[in-house]
């Protein structure tokens, strides 16, 4: 089944097509949502991702493009879904509290500590720079797909990424120097 045939089958409601699309994009969608800006601690990235898939299934009849652009389209939906979650959490005015003792368990996923480290590293960037770096350097989207997903031009994406990486280099070298001195 070709890429475009996968999308066409997904439009018809074929479960195999949706399984193929989910395998291709769901993992990096969750990773991107975990590392991107403005994540609400009260809302898990998996919840946003699940709502994103449901919205995509509702709107897939209006989607025009192949499987290559499907990722960018899906990330764009996720960005809007996350923004809606953020607005709702702002209205709820919840105050996050510390995790209950014993809540942390060693998950089977060995990449969780790495994700936490990257999220902490990207926290010093501006929200836009964080989004761009998370899309390109963390989950491996192309510049064009990143621009489409974030609603930016490719030039703006390149500029934001350049600034973000320069800042990350400076912070990393400072941290390494401090660790060496200590």
């Amino acid at each position: 089944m070709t890429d475009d045939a996968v999308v066409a089958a997904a439009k018809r409601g074929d479960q195999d097509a949706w399984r193929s699309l989910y395998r291709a994009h769901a993992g990096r969608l969750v990773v991107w949502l975990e590392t991107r800006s403005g994540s609400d601690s009260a809302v898990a990235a998996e919840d946003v991702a699940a709502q994103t898939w449901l919205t995509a299934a509702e709107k897939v009849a209006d989607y025009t493009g192949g499987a290559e652009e499907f990722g960018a389209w899906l990330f764009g939906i996720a960005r809007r879904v996350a923004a809606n979650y953020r607005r709702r959490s702002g209205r709820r005015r919840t105050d996050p509290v510390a995790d209950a003792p014993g809540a942390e368990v060693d998950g089977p996923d060995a990449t969780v500590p790495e994700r936490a480290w990257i999220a902490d590293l990207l926290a010093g960037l501006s929200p836009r720079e964080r989004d761009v770096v998370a899309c390109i350097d963390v989950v491996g989207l192309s510049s064009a797909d990143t621009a489409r997903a974030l609603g930016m031009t490719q030039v703006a994406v390149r500029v934001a990424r350049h600034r973000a990486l320069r800042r990350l280099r400076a912070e990393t070298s400072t941290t390494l120097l401090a660790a060496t001195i200590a």
Partner: protein
Amino acid sequence: MLPDLRIDVPELEPPAVLLEQLAQLSRQGAASAPHDGPGIVKAFLAAVSVSVLASVAWLTGTLPGVASPFTREPETRPAPQHAAAEPGTLALADEDTEADAPPAVADGHAGAHHGKAQHGGRTTPPQDNGHHTGQTKPHQNNGHHTGQTKPHQNNGHHTGQTKPHQNNGHHTGQTKPHQDNGHHSGQTKPHVHGNGHRS
């Protein structure tokens, strides 16, 4: 030195329930999606709509600058021969002036002016038989003269002025009354002439 930020993204397997929901939602979306016709049909419908709207607007006269065919144009009346607004009143004034023949004409001043001594401020001297008018077109004048837009009590004195004035039988086309001693001029400037010649 920047460390590699790339994460090995795990390949997730969709839950069966979510997969079923995705398939169902996509089928519903496909069923409710509008089936658009070709673009030429849209363009044709748009053109027909615009034409109908334009026609209705034209017929009802709502288009600015375009008159409706159902509304009558106001008829344009020809300009009256005389400047008087009410022809009936003018006729009455003419009758009055017939009775009150101007003494200046009657007493032989016209002869002194060779029948062309009275002028109504016209730019082109008309064939004048001693009657004066402020009109721009020559007309059959029977001795009653007025340049006024309204009829006035005419006692045989003629003027091209816009306001009636005390006229003592002297006629002028001037805009200002002047000392006239029976000599008439079509000039715009007052002049003094006592030699019976028209300047």
